[in-house]
């Protein structure tokens, strides 16, 4: 029990990061229909963007915002400059997968070429501890929780109450039908890249302020849990991904506390495999399962 409570606390923090990253990834894949394997490296590059900004001596929260903005702009640009031209040129689905992983390598090793394979840290908060009920959080952790919860509320409001959000949900469910219903899917897709890229950037920064040091591979290292979160929730299902992030964040931290920290990823992996065996389309994808056949 002594181990379990702090693990639960860590789990909630991890879940916030995973929710940011997982919801972004899931929406991106679901709405744009491109499996962007460069997602992890974009997270890292957003972290480095935030690092650059914070080195100018600005407030950490401005650096966080800069990371999110960088992720959004970078993702939109990447889609416009690389992905869309390849699709227009007739590159098929499995060609596109190669394109995105090529981009992933170029970005990841680009970062390594510029900054070198060493350790960095993004600091700026006094690490004072705050007691919240049975949990003890640092201010940084509370900040991450805040970013996570805030972003999720924003995503919820967007999807639920705006026409844009409805268009995005419609496009995620059935792009062809959405286009036939008069939704300007191109614009929706641009905005989807911006929003998912923004979440990706925020996740990248949140990820690195949660650890004492990060490297050029920190973002890519989170790819397994991110994919697990998205698949568990059902691709394109933002709420599914949020729930998925909670489940995977908490179970992996508990497993890390009870078994070994090396096995965080393995927990995510086992969950992923189980989901693929039982419900390949994810557990919250009732609607999405109909789409495949109807399309």
């Amino acid at each position: 029990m002594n181990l379990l409570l702090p693990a639960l606390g860590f789990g909630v923090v991890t879940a916030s990061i995973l929710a940011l990253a997982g919801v972004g990834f899931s929406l991106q894949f679901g709405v744009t229909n491109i499996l962007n394997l460069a997602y992890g490296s974009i997270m890292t590059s957003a972290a480095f963007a935030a690092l650059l900004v914070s080195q100018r001596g600005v407030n950490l929260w401005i650096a966080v915002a800069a990371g999110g903005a960088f992720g959004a702009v970078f993702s939109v640009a990447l889609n416009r400059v690389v992905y869309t031209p390849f699709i227009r040129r007739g590159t098929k689905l499995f060609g596109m997968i190669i394109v995105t992983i090529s981009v992933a390598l170029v970005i990841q090793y680009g970062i390594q070429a510029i900054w070198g394979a060493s350790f960095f840290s993004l600091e700026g908060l006094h690490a004072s501890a705050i007691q919240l009920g049975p949990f003890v959080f640092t201010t940084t952790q509370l900040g991450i929780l805040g970013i996570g919860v805030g972003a999720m509320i924003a995503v919820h409001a967007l999807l639920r109450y705006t026409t844009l959000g409805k268009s995005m949900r419609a496009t995620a469910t059935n792009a062809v039908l959405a286009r036939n219903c008069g939704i300007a899917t191109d614009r929706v897709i641009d905005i989807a890249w911006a929003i998912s890229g923004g979440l990706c950037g925020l996740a990248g920064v949140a990820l690195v302020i949660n650890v004492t040091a990060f490297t050029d591979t920190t973002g890519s290292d989170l790819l397994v849990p991110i994919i697990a979160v998205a698949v568990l929730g059902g691709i394109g299902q933002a709420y599914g991904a949020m729930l998925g992030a909670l489940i995977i964040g908490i179970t992996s931290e508990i497993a890390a506390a009870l078994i070994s920290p090396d096995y965080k990823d393995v927990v995510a992996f086992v969950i992923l495999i189980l989901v693929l065996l039982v419900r390949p389309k994810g557990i919250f994808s009732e609607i999405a399962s109909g789409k495949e056949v109807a399309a």
Partner: protein
Amino acid sequence: MSSPQAAEAEGLIVVRGLEQNFGGVRAVAGVSFSIEKGRITGLIGPNGAGKSTTLDMIAGATRPSAGTISFQGRDITRLAAYQRARLGIVRTFQSSSEFARLTVMENLLVAAPRLRGERLVGALLGRWYWREEEQLAVERARELLRRFEMTAKEDEYAGDLSGGQKRLLEIMRGLMAEPEVLLLDEPMAGVNPSLARRIETYLLELHHSGLTAIMVEHELGTVERLCDPVIVMAEGRVLRQGTMPELRRSREVLDAYLIG
């Protein structure tokens, strides 16, 4: 057009109480009918009537939520699409589904059933083991190409064919599979009128040489000339079944079309 030996007994394909739900939407809501050997059965109805979904379920592309499908008296509801194809239930697709980077000839050869070189052991035994049989399949494919006036296209990539030629390839490929029953999903969709007439003539010829088929089609003139009987579907149910002239007189059918 009906032949005297058309027995009223068990049909070649019998469909009972077929249902299909997509995430709460009932695309097909309890469909039953029977297909007889040697006939082209038309499946018509307004958009969203569930025709293509019914065809998909018979072909095994989607599994029905409820109901059974039997073929030659055997329950095939749980068989995979490829197993049904091997039994002789072969389908064509509405959208072009050619193997784009295979030649026309290769497209046809893929459909040839039970080739020795198709199995791993057969392939590993080498060319001498399967060559002769393959040559027979090549000849059969050439026969089809002649019949459909596509001989000149033999070595072209299927992806480079025109839309109409792809439709022809689709039908030829279905025939190459030696079907007991051919499921035609709008074989003339998006084809110019003269080619549509050609396809119609081919199908009529095939019908006279004994082809059994189920055909989903929108153009009622074509249905009238090719199909007997015709099944009318609307809102996921069978509305009526009969010959086209009979159906034209039916108030119900007219309503369904006008409202649909």
